[in-house]
């Protein structure tokens, strides 16, 4: 999955505007502060608070 480095730097959690990082399985973007994961579907990050799932 091609989420490139520069883009990841400016990408933020839409909820808290904090940094997000790529999950280890590379299937989502995780915001540690809110403890939620934004899914990546068909190579497109879904940056919607509605679609985020909680992470343990």
């Amino acid at each position, binding site marked *: 999955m091609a989420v490139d480095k*520069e*883009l990841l*730097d*400016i*990408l*933020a*959690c*839409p*909820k808290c*505007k904090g*940094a*997000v990082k790529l999950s280890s399985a590379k299937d989502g973007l995780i915001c540690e502060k809110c403890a939620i994961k*934004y899914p990546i*579907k*068909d*190579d*497109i*990050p*879904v*940056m*919607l*608070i*509605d*679609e985020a799932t909680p992470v343990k």
Partner: protein
Amino acid sequence: MKNILWLCPLLMMTVLTVVFMYFGFTLWSSLLIAALLICPVIILYGIVKALRRESPLEGMLPHTRGMPLNWAAPFYDWGCRKVGLGPRFRQETIRQAALRPGERVLDVGCGTGVLTRLAAEAVGTSGKAIGIDPAPKMIVTARKNASAERSNAEFRLAVIEDLPFEDNSFDCVLSSLMLHHLPPDLKLLGLGEVKRVLRPGGRLVLVDIGRPESRLWWVVVWPLLLWSFTKDQVSGRVSEYFEKAGFSKHERVGSWVKLLSFWFVFK
């Protein structure tokens, strides 16, 4: 909408039966002919439906009080060209934006990504162009078009009231025909978010319906005065939104067919 689609063949059948009965066929033979005529249509529909791979993204329409154009994705570009908002209009928007190589650009409400791709071309490989849209089908189309054209443009599914970017991330934000999809309070929220992600001194280049410059247009556009989404725009009060959202400077720099206005807005 989807769950009443099965009514269509039934309705067609009823109409056809009535027509055949009018021409003197009995009820049963009319029904039979109507069913035979409709069968291929239903079979074709089934085949198309089965062959088309639906993206998992397509079901993710967000809850927003704005007005995403999800349903229009398959024919949006065609429709735009038909109403005179084709490539020339997009190129004019890019010209107004005066993008330089290496700049970071965000296209809010990118739709099928026509403008995002042109922006990606203008900023080159050292720059970045990202498009966001709340309509999953638009984003899927945008991505398909971009990879077909080998464009560097990137796309995200996101809403303008919660932009998924850090503060001061962009040199330029483009907003083309997006503002009239938002109710008044969301326009303010959205513009506030745009200001947040713009770097100090960054610019917003916005094009949308403004106060018509020709009296003739009023004959057509007066109903827009009755709709809260467009009322303030048609009556020429867009600039108040820029001021309320906290932008330092704004200027109306041009127009398109005397109806759409181009705005240059500075953080």
